[in-house]
Structure formats: structure tokens, C-alpha cells
């Protein structure tokens, strides 16, 4: 049994069916790329894994390390090691970035004990340095007024502090210039290892040059319509999704 098993998943939002039976396996230590045209349902899958309240799972299962994720609240999922780097990170007005991160770190890895402030701050400063995030952000509010690229960096910064075992990266590459993309990809690479499974959602092979996937899957109209090795990504970039639509 795979660490993450998604079986015949159907998901609705606002009464409309978006995922129409998705099946996918991901083991820790592996990296999957999920591609597909706009509106095909990639983010919906990501949100369903994380437990977003706007998305109703109407059928099928999501099992993570033997536990049915769909039975759990978003915070319980996160404490089981699930992390979603969102395509559109949410601005939370006034909530201090430092307090937010500290609360999240304590919730996910304190074992009931808070991580000592000094240890937390030195880990935070280290992660900020790695990802090229200026120290002035410590005084800012969560995502408030961040540029698109800053938000993406901050998502990966959270991942590196929360040390997930499953990281879903939803278009983390969009909105990043080449240098930022490199920095962020290096951040992801640092996290990779036998204890982390990565599901990377993207439209472009650009990021896949830095983070090499073991498998590539293609979603179209709420289903996985093609699967293959890294070469599939190059094919898609060259020819687009046109011939998929005919096979789907």
C-alpha cells in the first residue's frame, strides 16, 4: 500500500462536480508532477487533500499512511505531516508572521512541549536566509501585502519549518523569476529525502529541471488521462494538451 493512496476521488465545489474519479499513488521518497490545462482540477485535488472547506468529497478515498484523511480536520491532517503550498496563499490581516509560524511549529512538532523560543528563532532565521527572505518580514503580517513571488517563497519557508512528510506544491513556480525559482527549488530539494513525498503541480517544465519528478501525471476535466516518466512533461511542453483531449 502506498503512503498516499487516492482512489476514485470525486469532489464538488459549489454544487458542481470537479473531480470525476481520480486515482493516484505516492510514496514517501518520491516526487510526482501533476500537469494539466487550466481548470482541469489540479488545485481542487490539492485542496481536497488539505481539507479545504469549500470542496466536498462526494466519493472515493484519500488515505495517508493508512488513515482516511477525509475524516480529519485540516489541522489534524497537517499534524500528520500533510502540507499544501497554495497556488494563492491567503493574506491574514494583522496576524504576525512570527507568532503564526511559532504556533504552527509548536502544533506540528512540539510533542506537547513548545519548541524553545531561541531554538525556534534560530531555525526561522536560518530558513529565511536559505530562501532569501529579508529579516524585516518578521514584523509583517501573514502574506499581507506580499508580492506574488514573496508569497511563494513564504510557502516554502513554512514547509521547511514544518518538516512535512507530504508536500503538495500547487504552482509554486508561477510568479517567480529565474533566480527566485532557483532559490525556491533549492529549498524544496533540501527538504527532499526518504521521508518526504512531493506532489508538484505545474504548467511548465521549468521547475522540473530543478526538481526532477519520478512520474508525471496529466489531469484533464477532473481525471488523470495520462501518466509516464519525466519525458511526458517535455512532450506536453512541446505539443501542448491538444492530443490528450482527443484521447480523453
Amino acid at each position, binding site marked *: 500500500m502506498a503512503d498516499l493512496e487516492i482512489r476514485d476521488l470525486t469532489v464538488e*465545489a*459549489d454544487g458542481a462536480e470537479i473531480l470525476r474519479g481520480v486515482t493516484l499513488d505516492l510514496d514517501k521518497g518520491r516526487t510526482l508532477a501533476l500537469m494539466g490545462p487550466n481548470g482541469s482540477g489540479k488545485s481542487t485535488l490539492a485542496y481536497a487533500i*488539505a*481539507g*479545504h*472547506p*469549500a470542496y466536498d468529497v462526494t466519493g472515493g478515498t484519500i488515505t495517508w499512511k493508512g488513515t482516511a484523511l477525509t475524516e480529519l*480536520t*485540516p*489541522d489534524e*491532517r*497537517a*499534524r500528520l505531516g500533510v*502540507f*499544501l503550498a*497554495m497556488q*494563492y*496563499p*491567503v493574506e*491574514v*490581516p*494583522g*496576524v*504576525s508572521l512570527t*507568532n*503564526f509560524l511559532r*504556533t*504552527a511549529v509548536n*502544533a*506540528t512538532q512540539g510533542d506537547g512541549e513548545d519548541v524553545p523560543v531561541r531554538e525556534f528563532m534560530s531555525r526561522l532565521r536560518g530558513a529565511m536566509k536559505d530562501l532569501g527572505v529579508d529579516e524585516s518580514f518578521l514584523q509583517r*503580517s*501573514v502574506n499581507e501585502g506580499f508580492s506574488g513571488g514573496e508569497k511563494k517563497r513564504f510557502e516554502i519557508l*513554512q514547509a521547511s519549518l*514544518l518538516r512535512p512528510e507530504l508536500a503538495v506544491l500547487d504552482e509554486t513556480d508561477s510568479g517567480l523569476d529565474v533566480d527566485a525559482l532557483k532559490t525556491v527549488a533549492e529549498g524544496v530539494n533540501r527538504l527532499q529525502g526518504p521521508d518526504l513525498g512531493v506532489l508538484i503541480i505545474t504548467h511548465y517544465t521549468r521547475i522540473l529541471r530543478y526538481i526532477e519528478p519520478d512520474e508525471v501525471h496529466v489531469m484533464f476535466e477532473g481525471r488523470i488521462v495520462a501518466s509516464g516518466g519525466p519525458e511526458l512533461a517535455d512532450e506536453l511542453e512541446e505539443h501542448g494538451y491538444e492530443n490528450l483531449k482527443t484521447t480523453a
Partner: protein
Amino acid sequence: MTEFLLDDLTEEALTGRSDAAEEPSWLRDRRLAAFKRYLDLAWPDSRADEFWRSTPFQRRIDVDRAVVTTAPADVEVPASVTDGLDLGSATARIIDGEVVDITLPTAMAELGVVVTDLATAAREHGDLVRTHLGSLTTSDPEGTGGGSDRTVTVNDAAWTAGLFVHVPAEVELDAPISVQVHASTPGAHLPRVLGVLGHHARATLYLEHTSAPELDALVDEVVEVIAQDASKLDVVSLQRWDGPVQHLSLQKVAAHRDASIRHLTVTIGGATVRVLPECDLVGAGAEVRPLGIYFADEGQWFDLQPYVRHLAPHASSDVLFKGALQGHSRTVFRGNIFVHKDAVGTVTDENNRSLILTEGARADATPFLEIECADITAGHGSATGQIDALHLFYLESRGIRRDDALRLIVFGFFRDVLREIAAPGIEDVALADIEARVEAADLSKVQINDAALQDLG
């Protein structure tokens, strides 16, 4: 001893007390003048008086009480904000009807700073007190205050424990002057504070209101502070009543030429709290930033009425009040901006935000603008909302439990206001009080606004 009843003041009682306190005759005459107006006035009628429309006086305020004129010998007073801080603050306590425990650090005394009880000040600093006492309220016909509210006039006539603070011209203080008003016995309490900042002075005044647990009392308070030319004043008033206290507080400041004032009120405790943070901008180029945060819980009724009067040109005001509510509670924000016809170049803005946490709470907001002058810039706005489901999801998706997520969001809601005044100790105390409230909240009853979920794509 003659009876001293809030609802039935007598000339005899007032004269007797004034003489016993060895108040100068001009002060006694002022009290008696105010007493005459008190006799002419009735208690507010919430149907007739527009400033009282928002709070039903008859139902929420009990005036049938004896005025408390003394302080018991052994009162346990909760620690004040400045107690734990090594700031070199001047501190004073008003307990019930008496001023006790004034501490003025030598460093401040050497600069000529005065913190003393008002009756003493009326003798020793007669000119200053005579000029300013009541100049912003109803007891001085030459002053800027109107004469029509009996809850103010009664204090003008019968104030008991009074405190005088003077920061001479060009004296700049880093440490706050911290006044704790503590109510320990049932009855009517009539504290009074007069502050005067000389030109180019700088000072921070804390007014901290505490009470014995479960105390049923009415505190009818008047605070006046005059900020003379180019002075800088921060006033922070904390309402931390521990019980069903009824609190009526006029906190009026005057900003003279180029003076700059920030005025923060933090309202957490009390059954009915009506605070009027008022400011007269009497000098050109003056500026005022009235700020407020409040958190109302089951049974509480908070009425906040910032009132800014632009009486001089090129002055600016920027009002920001934020409140959270839970349980069956009620908050009223009535912001008033008046711009005199000569106040050209006025810049003013006024905003109120309410966060309703659970069903049954109600927040009313009415920003008023009364503008006689065309050449100005004015804005206002108000909004009431609930916890945003997307904010909650984002925090929860990072492993943060719902109660912690709510606490972070509520703190975040208030943070921009608290950030405006870097007053030592205040943010910590305010957030601790708010945290206690959020912790006591029934999470299952928290209302969540999921409107934002619909327009995802």
C-alpha cells in the same frame, strides 16, 4: 454627616465638603455654579437626547446611589500595568473617593512635573487649575464644553477624588504617568483628572480602571487634558472593571497649535461602559489620533463616542475604533466629526470595524460628519464582519488548532490599532485580557463567514 446622594445633591453637602478639603473659594463657587445647572438638568433621556439614543440610560445606569467619598483602609488593589515595568513612571491611585499613593520619581520632580491631588493643586497651583479645570466641560462658561449633560455636570459639581498632572513647557517624559482608578465599594464614584502639558512638552498618561470582583458601582468620571502649543500627548485609558460596573467617562483633550495627541481606549470590563474620547482641535496644525479597541462579552454594553471638533485651520484627525463581540453583547460606535467654518485645510478620517464572533451580539456604527467648511478632506467608513473561513483554513492547514487560530485572528484584528501607540506594557495587558475572553468562548458557537469561499477559482 450630611447625606451625599448622586441623585439628590445639596448645596449644604457640597459646601461642607469643599470647606473641609480647604478648597479655595473660587473652586467652591464653581462647584456651586455647576450644582445650579445640575438642578436645572434632568438625567439623560435616551429618546430625546441624540448622544444618548444608543444607550438606554434608565435601563443601564442606576443613579440612585450614595456618593463614595472615602477609601477603606485595607483595599486589595490589582497590579497596574506599570507595576511590573521598571520604567521610572509616576504613579497615582484613586481608590473610591480618595487619592492615595502618589509616587513621583525624583527625576520627574526635578523637571518641575507635578502630580498631586486636585484640592492641593487648587491651592498651590491656583492659576493653572483655575484656568483649566472645567475649561473643556460644563463648569466653565468660557470653556469649550456644552452645559447640557447632567452626567458631566454632576462631576463638575461633586467630584470627589481629583488628580492634577502638570508637565511644564519643554519637559519631555519617556516614562508614563500612570493613574489607577480603583473602585472597591458599591455606590457612586466621581473621580476627576486634570492634566496640563506646557508648550513643547511630551508625556504619556495612563488611566487604568479596575474594581473589586463583582462590584456593583457607578463610576462617573471626567478627565480633561490640555495640550499646549507643539506638545505631544499620549493618553491610554484601560477599562478593566472586574464586575458589573457602570462607567461613564468623558475624556476630553484640547490640542493647541501644532500639538499632537494620540488617545487610545481599551474597553474590556464593565457592564455598561460609555466612553467619550473627545478632542477639540483649537490650534492650527494640531493633530489627533483617537483610537479604540474593545471586546464585549455576554451582557456587556459598550458605547464609544469619539468626538473631534476641528475649530482651527489645517488640523487633522484620524479616528480608528475596532471591536470584537461575543455572547449577548452590544457595542455602539458613534463617531462625530465637526468641522467649523473657519477650519480650512482640515483633513479627517473616521473608521470603525466590528468582528462578531458568536450569534446574539450586535454592533451598531454611526459615523457622523458635521461640516461647515468646504475646503477640507473627509472620509469615513464602517464595517461589520465575522471570522473569515479562508483565514481560518490557512492557519489550520498549518496544523494550528481552531482555538489558537481564532486567537491569532482576533489578535490580528486588533494589532494595527495597538501598533499605533508604542505605549509600554499596554499591548501585553490588552492582549492578555482579550486572550482570556477568547479562551472562555464557546468555539462551537463561533460564526464563520464563508462568503469568501464562493469566489475561489
